[in-house]
């Protein structure tokens, strides 16, 4: 089955291209490239790897008991529960709405469609604190549309939906675009109604893309800070893990922060792993 599908970058709108690639094993490292690799690895270490290692180290600086105490702190747990539940919800909503949006953008055509395509990218590129201010302006106490969601879990979900809007859409869009319509057309010829065609022909092909988009939305939502800060209203019941961590930073309780951070990092790693597995499964299925 020819589904030359293009490799979508999930952090950004994708470009449709055939995915014929050719790295025939690659060349071996010469002196120049070896040096380049060394420099690159050094930079990556200094910038990313060592700092993250420091976080995990500090998280365990109180030993396992210190780690456990901080994980089981009721405030930390409450924040984590809110974070994970909201993020899962957001990922699920994005899976559905993202697919719908991608479908409408690719298969439909109406005046302003390209404008909509453009608008979808805005929340991702917006500074998070601006997103937060925007949300506060619309859903806070001064709401001009009469919706008051300050300090509610709904507001947190709304904020997260805002910043994760493009993820699933951009994941699914290129797959849809490159989809070969022959099979769908054949099914239609044979009498299948559109809903069935979607469910049994198109959807299975889209599932990996949907899953990967939803997973990335989840990863972004879990760590999100600036956009939900203001609308949370300072209530402990709307304090997500990143806000809890920041509070501990303000108290210079670095052990508590590091433990929370380690948990969040573990979640991120699981997400990346999951993505990798999804993609391998998709490739295998062919």
């Amino acid at each position, binding site marked *: 089955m020819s589904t030359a599908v293009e490799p979508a970058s999930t952090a950004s709108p994708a470009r449709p291209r055939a995915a014929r690639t050719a790295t025939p094993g690659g060349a071996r490292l010469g002196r120049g490239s070896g040096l380049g690799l060394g420099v690159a690895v050094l930079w990556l270490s200094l910038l990313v790897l060592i700092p993250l290692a420091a976080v995990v180290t500090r998280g365990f600086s109180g030993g396992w008991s210190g780690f456990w105490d901080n994980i089981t702190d*009721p405030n930390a747990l409450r924040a984590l529960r809110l974070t994970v539940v909201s993020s899962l919800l957001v990922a699920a909503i994005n899976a559905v709405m993202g697919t719908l949006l991608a479908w409408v953008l690719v298969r439909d055509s109406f005046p302003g469609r390209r404008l909509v395509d453009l608008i979808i990218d805005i929340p991702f590129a917006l500074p998070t604190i601006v997103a937060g201010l925007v949300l*506060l302006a619309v859903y*806070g*106490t001064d709401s001009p549309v009469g919706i*008051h969601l*300050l*300090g509610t879990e709904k507001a947190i979900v709304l904020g997260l939906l805002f910043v994760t809007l493009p993820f699933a859409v951009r994941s699914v869009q290129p797959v849809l675009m490159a989809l070969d319509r022959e099979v769908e057309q054949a099914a239609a010829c044979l009498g299948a109604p559109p809903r069935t065609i979607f469910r049994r022909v198109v959807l299975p092909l889209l599932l990996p893309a949907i899953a990967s988009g939803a997973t990335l939305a989840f990863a972004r939502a879990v760590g999100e800070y600036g956009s939900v800060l*203001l609308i949370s*209203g*300072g*209530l*402990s019941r709307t304090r997500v893990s990143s806000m809890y961590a920041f*509070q501990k930073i*303000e*108290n*210079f*309780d670095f052990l508590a922060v590091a433990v929370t951070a380690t948990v969040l990092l573990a979640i991120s790693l699981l997400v990346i792993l999951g993505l990798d597995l999804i993609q391998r499964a998709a490739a295998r299925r062919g």
Partner: protein
Amino acid sequence: MKPRRLWRFGAPMIAAGAALALAVTACGGDSDGGSDSAATSGAGPNAGQSVAIVGYSVPKLAYDDLQAEFLKTDAGKGVKFSETFGASGTVSKSVASGQKADFVTFSLEPDMKRLVPKFVAEDWNADSTKGQITNSVVVIVVRKGNPLKITGWDDLIKPGVKIVTPDPASSGSAKWNILAAYTHTLAEGGTDAQAQDYLTSFFKNVVSKPASGADATTTFTQGTGDVLISYENEAIGAKQKGVDVDYVVPKETFLIENPAAVTVTASAAAKAFLTYAKSDEGQAIFAKHGFRPTDKNATIGTVEGANDPSKPFPTIEKLTTIADLGGWSKVNKEFFDADNGIVTKIENATG
């Protein structure tokens, strides 16, 4: 290059160029390096020196005014200021962690003591005001018109009253608030056990514990909660900013005393600034922002935003001070110790 290629290359180049242009113009327009435009070609004794102010969140506007006025004086001509304001505990620990500071002021003494002797000299409080620079009292801020008819502390523990007060883990304001809540029972003739009961009911009604005093005001202003516990000057300041609130000065409350000092690496300009802030002129500026001056004999003009602008600082019937409780070391240990403090235990119990 063909015209189309030029365009494809061109658009992002324009974006980059715009950013660059922004940087250049901002650079060119910013030759002063951030200092106030009032300070120009002064040949004052401290010209060119810089003063880094690190302070607790509440007096930011007062310090903005102080800086502006100080720059007009001889001692202040040509001085360059920078500032960081935040929760008292947080900024204190920041300085302890290496944040540059010349002039420091905190909500309460322990946050200053933390910096002695490494960052602040031991004799910081050897002067006539014992190192204190401003006073205030704890008040109850309510929505405009006082819809819940709050008259004092006891009204706060009624069911359904939503209280906003900062988090004692980071905020100095929070500790003053809690002590005021606790000691009002004692001032009414109650026992320690009754005071603890009150505090427990109080915390059950707390819905939000923002990181700093100023954060708490913002949280309240943005719509959370029914009452805010805060400094009298914070309430006055909010009203000056046009926020729709009123405040109640309870019959029994606590005296807030805020310390200020210069660091061991401070410039002469910083020392001059401290002297200015404690002078009559400086204290008058503080008073304008709702702070009670430390000098009891200081003249106070009208204060906009106060309940009665011509008599902005009413005498408190029963005013408790930190000295009455035995000083901060004792109080911190007894009330706020991370494991056994009275308040810590109540907070943990009420979630």
